[in-house]
Every structure is written in structure tokens, then in C-alpha cells.
């Protein structure tokens, strides 16, 4: 019965988020969605808006936790933080021109809103990150799988190698080649 599954103290939760423990991320994701859906549905949004905003907010919280930009101060701080971020994002969308005009939320509307509020430096960083994300998205499946298992799931090369039934050195070389491929794609799109 997954003891680790349930994120008790906030510090455990922070630790689990930083290590991308899938079970914990999933639990955190699924148990906090409802409140935000209710909020958005009550405020002229649709279920699709709720999902987009929530996922966007979730990634923001995850990023902030990873970079120690947010440290929880009480028992439900992270949950509250997620809610606040989603709420703010939704408020921004509601205020944005494109939403007022069309009442439909497309990706442009969301990015537009985000860009408005950020300073240039952050924009630049964000842009670089977007490029990297896109490149990774389009990377071939085997490489994608390998890099994701290593960098996101944080599995050791040894474990990866034994799963793929290859030598550890081979896995290490593959990982390097995949990174080179990804770097080439990133550099090409600059």
C-alpha cells in the first residue's frame, strides 16, 4: 500500500516533486484539480479552460519548487500556492483583450497574457526553454525515451542499461549521442 504514495508533510512533498516521483506528482495533480475547475467554471470558463490553466499552473509550481523559489510554510501551502497561481492565471486571461473579444481561449491568448507580465530577461529565458522543450518534443522516440528516463525519472544508467538489456557503457554512449542530437536541434532553431 504505497506508503510513499501519499505526500504527507510538505517537506516530503517538496522532496518528491524535486525527484519527479510520478506517483506523488499524480496524486498532487489529481487531488487539487477540482477546486480550480469549480473556480473557473464559476467564472465564465469551460472545462477545457480549467484543464489548460491548471496544467500551466501545475508546471509553474513544479518549476518554482524545483528552483527553491517557493518554500511551503504550513501544512497545505503547496496546495494553496497551486490554487493561487491558477487563479491568477485565470484572472489574467479574463482581463486579456483576446479573451474579451473572442470568449474562446486559444494558446495565443495564454502566451500573450504571460508575455505581458514578464520582463524581458525572463522572456528571453522562457524563450530558450520553449525552444528546448519543442526540440525535445520532436526528438526521435528512442532518444526521447532514454533521456526522459534518465533526466526526468532520474533512473541510473545502470538500471536503464539492464532494462534495455545493453551494457552500461552502451547506454552511456547512447545518452551522449541523444544529447548531441538534441543540442543540434536546439542550436538549429536559434
Amino acid at each position, binding site marked *: 500500500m504505497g506508503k510513499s504514495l501519499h505526500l504527507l508533510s510538505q517537506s516530503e512533498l517538496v522532496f518528491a516533486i524535486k525527484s519527479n516521483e510520478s506517483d506523488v*506528482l499524480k496524486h498532487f495533480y489529481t487531488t487539487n484539480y477540482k477546486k480550480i475547475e469549480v473556480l473557473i467554471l464559476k467564472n465564465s470558463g469551460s472545462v477545457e479552460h480549467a484543464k489548460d490553466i491548471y496544467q500551466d499552473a501545475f508546471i509553474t509550481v513544479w518549476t518554482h519548487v524545483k528552483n527553491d523559489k517557493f518554500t511551503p510554510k504550513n501544512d497545505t501551502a503547496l496546495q494553496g500556492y497551486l490554487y493561487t497561481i491558477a487563479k491568477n492565471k485565470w484572472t489574467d486571461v479574463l482581463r486579456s483583450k483576446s479573451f474579451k473579444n473572442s470568449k474562446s481561449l486559444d494558446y495565443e491568448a495564454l502566451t500573450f497574457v504571460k508575455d505581458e507580465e514578464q520582463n524581458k530577461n525572463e522572456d528571453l529565458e522562457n524563450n530558450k526553454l520553449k525552444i528546448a522543450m519543442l526540440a525535445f518534443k520532436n526528438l526521435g522516440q528512442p532518444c526521447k525515451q532514454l533521456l526522459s528516463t534518465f533526466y526526468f525519472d532520474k533512473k541510473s544508467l545502470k538500471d536503464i542499461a539492464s532494462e534495455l538489456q545493453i551494457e552500461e557503457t552502451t547506454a552511456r554512449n547512447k545518452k551522449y549521442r541523444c544529447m*548531441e542530437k538534441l*543540442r543540434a536541434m536546439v542550436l538549429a532553431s536559434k
Partner: protein
Amino acid sequence: MLKDNSDISKELLEIIERYINGSMTTQELKDFNQLLELDDDFKIKVADIKTMLTGIETQSLKEQLDEFHEDIPKTFIKKSVDKTVRYLNLSKMAAAAAIIIAVGSIWFFSTPENEKLYTNYFKPDPGLPTTMSSTDNFDFYDAMVKYKHGDYNIAIEKWQALVERKPENDTLNYFLGVAHLANKNVIDAIPFLERTVQSKDTFPLINDAHYYLGLAYLKEGNTELARIHIGLSNTNDAKELILKLTD
């Protein structure tokens, strides 16, 4: 391979990675920082690698979120719990342990199965006897009195203040959990009950804690976790309910 001149060897890449994930020794880190200061190109390379790693992680997460999303229980339209909760039965509070006699009649209206089971099986915990006059525990029992009167918000507020000083206290976590449940706030109840069940199993109300946690998950629509926790409880209601959940 790369059109750019920014070739990075495998070894260098691994060193940079160790710098980024913070697994360098103090000496290595010192050398590395020196290099960063001296060589601007190198600094840019490191920053670029860092962005790439963040990109890999962020995109990986993003691609998982849709999967997570499918596991969110669908919204329940009816809130049929409302009534039952009000029937706070203040009768004899035996050892707080024993709970509930299930409502026998099952009605098949439009309410989802889980919701229906929850409504049938959920009765607030009767609380602890409050005859004690020990001054240490005054605040605790003061809140208990409120709880028994159905003033859940006040009880929660008082217990919350106590639990902040003693986050590990099973009894406090347990009653905060059941008070949130009685207050129809399943989402806030879960973390407290989770904390209770993860404590040593010498906690006298452990069976009730599993039972209520299971009910909370049931209400949340997570039948799998509901089954696990209800299965771990040996109360009569749990034994009865588990049969309904397994068929």
C-alpha cells in the same frame, strides 16, 4: 557533428551535469566555478545545457499531465452527503472507536455508486468523552466539545493551532481529519488522515482512521485507494463496505 563550434565531449557533458544537479565535491565545485568566471563561452555552454535539461524535464512532465488528467474522478453533480452529516448523533460515545451502522436500504437513483456508498456509510466520528479536566489538554477537549456540537469550523481552528506545535500527534491529526470530513471538506481531510495512518499502528484509532480515509477517497472517486484503506480497517462497517467495493 554540430555546425556550431560548441563541441562538448561526453566527459565534459557529464561534468557539467554533475555541476547542475549538485553532485560535485567541494573541490570540484571550486575549480568549476573558477572556470566559469574565467571563460565566458564556457559559461554560456553551461547555461545552455542547463536550459536543455530543464527543457527535457518540463516537456516530460507536460506530456504526463494529460495522462494524470484522465485519472481525475468525474465531477459529482449531487451533494447528497449534506443531510446525513447533520444527524450528528451525540449518544453514548463509547471508545470513539466503534462507528456507524450502515443504512440498510440502498436506493438506486442517479447518484454515482461511490457517492451513494459514501452517503450510506459516512457518519461523523462521535468524538472522545470530554469529562476529563486535565489542564494540559484543556484546549484539545475544548475543541472536542465544539466538535460534538457540530461547530466543526471552530473545532478545526482550535485543533489546527495545536497541531502546528505537534505535527506528529496522531490524535490531533485524526480528529482534524474527521472534523474536516464532518465539515464536508474531503480534500482537506485526506492529508490529516494520511498522516494518521502512516504513524505507528499502536495508535488506538488506527482502524477508524483507515476507515475514514477510505471513505474520503471513495468520495473523491478514487475507488482503488478507498479499497486499500477500508481493507486495512477491521471495523464492522469496513468489513461490510469492502464487500460492496469488491463486487
